[in-house]
C-alpha cells in the first residue's frame, strides 16, 4: 500500500516538475503546442476530405507519412547503440546515459505510431488491428508483426524508464535482477523492430527496389548512424543546460562506434547500387529514378545525391580521430549523417520503391502542404513527449528531486 501511495506521489510530483520551468522552457513548450495545433488543424481537414488532400495516389500509395515512420523506427532501434556497450562490456561512462537513449526510443515510437495512424484511411477502425479485440492477420502479415513488436518495444522501454526513475525518486537502488534482463531483452527487441519494418517492404515481390536481401541489414546499419547522431547532440545540450555530468570519453566512444556503422552502411549501399546498376536488369529503373531521373522526371535526384555526399562527408569526419574529437566537426558530422539517413530511409526508400509503378507508370510524388503540416505536428508531439520526460528525469537522475529532497521534502511521507 505504501509503495502504491509513493508511486502516486511520484506521479503528482512529476507533474509538478513539468508545470514549472524557466521562460525558455515555457516558450519551447508553447512553440511545440503551436506546431501541434497546426498539425491538428491539417489532420482535421484530412479526416473531413479524406487522404485526397495528400499527394499520394494509387500509383504512389505511400509517401511522406510512411517515410517518416520508417526513419523513426530506426531512431527508436538505435537506443540499443548505447545499451550494448553499457551492459555487455560493462562500460560505466555510457551506462548512466542509457536511460536517455531509452527515452529517445519512447519519443520515436510515439511518433511512429502517430505516422501510422495519420496514414490509414479509416482511423475509426483502429480497433480492427488490436490483438484479441480485432482480427490481426498474424503471423501472415508483416504489418501485424510490426504492430506487435513496436508496441512491445514501447512498453518495455516505458517500463524500464519509469522503473529506473521511480527508484531514483525513492532513493533506492534498482533491482539489478529485474532491470538487467529487461535491458538485455531490449537489444534483440530493437533489432527486431527494425528488421520487421524492413521485412514489411522486403517481402513484396511486386517491388523490386525493396525486394533485396540486404534491405534489413541496411536498415539496421543506417539506424545505428542516425539514432546516435541525435543522442550525441542531445548529450552536449544536456551537459550545458543541466548538472548532468556526461564524460567526453562517453561521447567520443559513441562517435567511434558510429564511424564503424557509417562505414558499413556506405558499404551496403554501394553493394546494392553495384548489383542493380552493373547487372542492369529491368529492376534498375527504380535506382535510375532515384539517382539519375527517368524519362525527364528528376525530382528525387538532388536529394539522393545530397544524401550520398552527406553520408560520405560524415563518414570521413567520424573516421578521422582528429575531427571526431573536435566539437565543431563532430557536430557537423552528426547533422550531415542525420540528413543523409533521413533522406535515404524516408523518401529515398519509399518513393523509388513505388516509382515507376507496377505497370510502368511514373507518377511524380511530392508531399502536399497538409502532409508537411501533419508531419510537423507529429514531430512536435514527439519532441514534446521527449522534453517532458527529460524535464522530469534529469532532476531525478541527479538526485535533486526525490521523495525526501527537493521542494516536497517537508510534506514527504516519513516512510
Amino acid at each position, binding site marked *: 500500500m505504501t509503495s502504491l501511495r509513493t508511486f502516486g506521489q511520484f506521479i503528482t510530483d512529476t507533474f509538478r516538475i513539468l508545470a514549472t520551468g524557466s521562460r525558455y522552457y515555457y516558450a519551447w513548450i508553447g512553440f511545440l503546442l503551436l506546431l501541434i495545433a497546426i498539425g491538428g488543424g491539417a489532420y482535421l481537414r*484530412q479526416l473531413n476530405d479524406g487522404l485526397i488532400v495528400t499527394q499520394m495516389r*494509387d500509383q504512389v500509395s505511400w509517401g511522406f507519412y510512411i517515410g517518416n515512420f520508417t526513419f523513426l523506427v530506426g531512431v527508436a532501434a538505435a537506443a540499443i547503440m548505447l545499451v550494448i556497450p553499457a551492459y555487455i562490456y560493462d562500460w560505466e561512462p555510457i551506462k548512466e546515459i542509457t536511460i536517455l537513449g531509452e527515452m529517445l526510443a519512447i519519443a520515436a515510437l510515439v511518433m511512429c505510431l502517430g505516422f501510422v495512424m495519420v496514414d490509414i484511411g479509416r482511423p475509426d477502425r483502429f480497433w*480492427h488491428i488490436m490483438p484479441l479485440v480485432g482480427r490481426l492477420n498474424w503471423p501472415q*502479415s508483416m504489418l501485424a508483426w510490426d504492430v506487435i513488436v513496436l508496441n512491445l518495444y514501447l512498453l518495455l522501454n516505458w517500463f524500464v524508464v519509469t522503473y529506473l526513475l521511480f527508484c531514483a525518486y525513492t532513493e533506492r537502488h534498482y533491482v539489478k535482477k529485474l532491470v538487467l534482463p529487461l535491458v538485455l531483452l531490449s537489444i534483440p527487441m530493437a533489432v527486431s523492430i527494425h528488421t520487421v519494418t524492413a521485412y514489411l517492404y522486403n517481402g513484396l515481390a*511486386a517491388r523490386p527496389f525493396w525486394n533485396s536481401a540486404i534491405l534489413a541489414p541496411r536498415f539496421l546499419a543506417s539506424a545505428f548512424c542516425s539514432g546516435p547522431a541525435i543522442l550525441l547532440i542531445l548529450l552536449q545540450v544536456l551537459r550545458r543546460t543541466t548538472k548532468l555530468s556526461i564524460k567526453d570519453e562517453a561521447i567520443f566512444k559513441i562517435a567511434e562506434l558510429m564511424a564503424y556503422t557509417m562505414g558499413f552502411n556506405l558499404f551496403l549501399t554501394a553493394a546494392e547500387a553495384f548489383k542493380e546498376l552493373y547487372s542492369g536488369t529491368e529492376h534498375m529503373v527504380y535506382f535510375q529514378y532515384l539517382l539519375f531521373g527517368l524519362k525527364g522526371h528528376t525530382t528525387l535526384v538532388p536529394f539522393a545525391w545530397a544524401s550520398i555526399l552527406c553520408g560520405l562527408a560524415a563518414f570521413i569526419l567520424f573516421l578521422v580521430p582528429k575531427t571526431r574529437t573536435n566539437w565543431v566537426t563532430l557536430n557537423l558530422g552528426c547533422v550531415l549523417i542525420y540528413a543523409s539517413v533521413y533522406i535515404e530511409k524516408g523518401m529515398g526508400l519509399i518513393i523509388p520503391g513505388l516509382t515507376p509503378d507496377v505497370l510502368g507508370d511514373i507518377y511524380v510524388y511530392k508531399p502536399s502542404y497538409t502532409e508537411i503540416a501533419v508531419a510537423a505536428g507529429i514531430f512536435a508531439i514527439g519532441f514534446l513527449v521527449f522534453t517532458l520526460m527529460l524535464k522530469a528525469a534529469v532532476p531525478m537522475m541527479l538526485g535533486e528531486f526525490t521523495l525526501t529532497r527537493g521542494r516536497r521534502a517537508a510534506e514527504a511521507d516519513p516512510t
Partner: protein
Amino acid sequence: MTEPRLNHPDQGCGGRREFLGTAVAAVAAALTGCGKISHEEFLQHNFKELSKDEVLSVIARLEKEYKEKFGKEVKVATTPPLPGVIFGYALDLSRCVGCRRCVHACVKENNQSREPEVQWIRVLELEKEEGVNLQHADQYYNPEEVPREGHFYMPVQCQQCKKPPCVKVCPVGATWREKDGITVVDYNWCIGCRYCMAACPYGARHFNWGEPHLPSADVNPDTHYFGNRPRPKGVVEKCTFCIQRTRKGLYPACVEVCPTGSRKFGNLLDKDSEIRYVLENKRVFKLKEDLNTQPNFFYFYGV
C-alpha cells in the same frame, strides 16, 4: 430484406460489442471526421465472423443507408460461391483494339466513384517491337483512332491470383480469396492502410482517396456485399469479376461489352467451357509469371 431489426439496435449485440462501449464509438465518430458513423456500423465485425442474423442486420442497415443516400432501392446480395466453380479469364491480345469500352462498362456496372473516377481496368498501349515490356507501356494514350500503327493493347485488371500477395499482407484479414477464386474486400473491415496496394504486382487495387461521388441516376441498384455496393471513403477496392453478376451465371460487364470478343470468361472446372477451350488450344501466358502469384487470368494470342 426485412428491416424491423433496425428498430432494435440493442438486439443481437453480443458481449464483445457491448464492452467496447459508446465512448469508443464517439471517439471513432470524431476520427471519421463526419460524425455520421453509427454505433452499429462502428462495432460491425469482420464479415467472416458474422452470424446469419448479424449478416441480415448488416445488409438491412446498408440497404437503408443507400436508400437514404441515393433515394432509390439498392439491393445488397450476399450470394455465396457456386459449388464446383472456379472462375477463369482469358484475354486475346491479338484482338484487343484498345477502345477502353471495358473500362467504362466496368465503372458503370460496379458503382465506382465518378469524381474522382476510380477505374478497375487499365489498358496499356504497348509497342509491337518491344512486346510486353511494361517500362514502354502508356496508359494515357489518346489518339484519334485506335488501334495505332505498330502498337498493341493490354488491359490489366485484378488477376485473381491463386496465391494473392494482397491477401497475405493485409494486417486485419479484410481481404481474402473465396472458393470460386475471387479475391474480395470487406469494405466495412478494411482500415485503409494500403499495404495490399504496395503488394499487388498488377496495380489492381484502388483506394478511395476522397469521398466517392456517385450520382443517384448512375447507381446500379443490383449489388453484392463484396462487389459493387457503394463504397465508403478511405477503403480499398478492386475488380471482383463482377461478383454480383457472375455468381448468378452472367458474364462480367467487361466481357459483355467487348466489341472484338477479346475477353473470354468461364468456369475452369467445366471441361466444356470456352475458357477451358482457350487454355487447351491456345498458347497462353500469365502476366509476371516469375512472381508465382499464379493468376487465374490468362493472356493469349488468338490469331
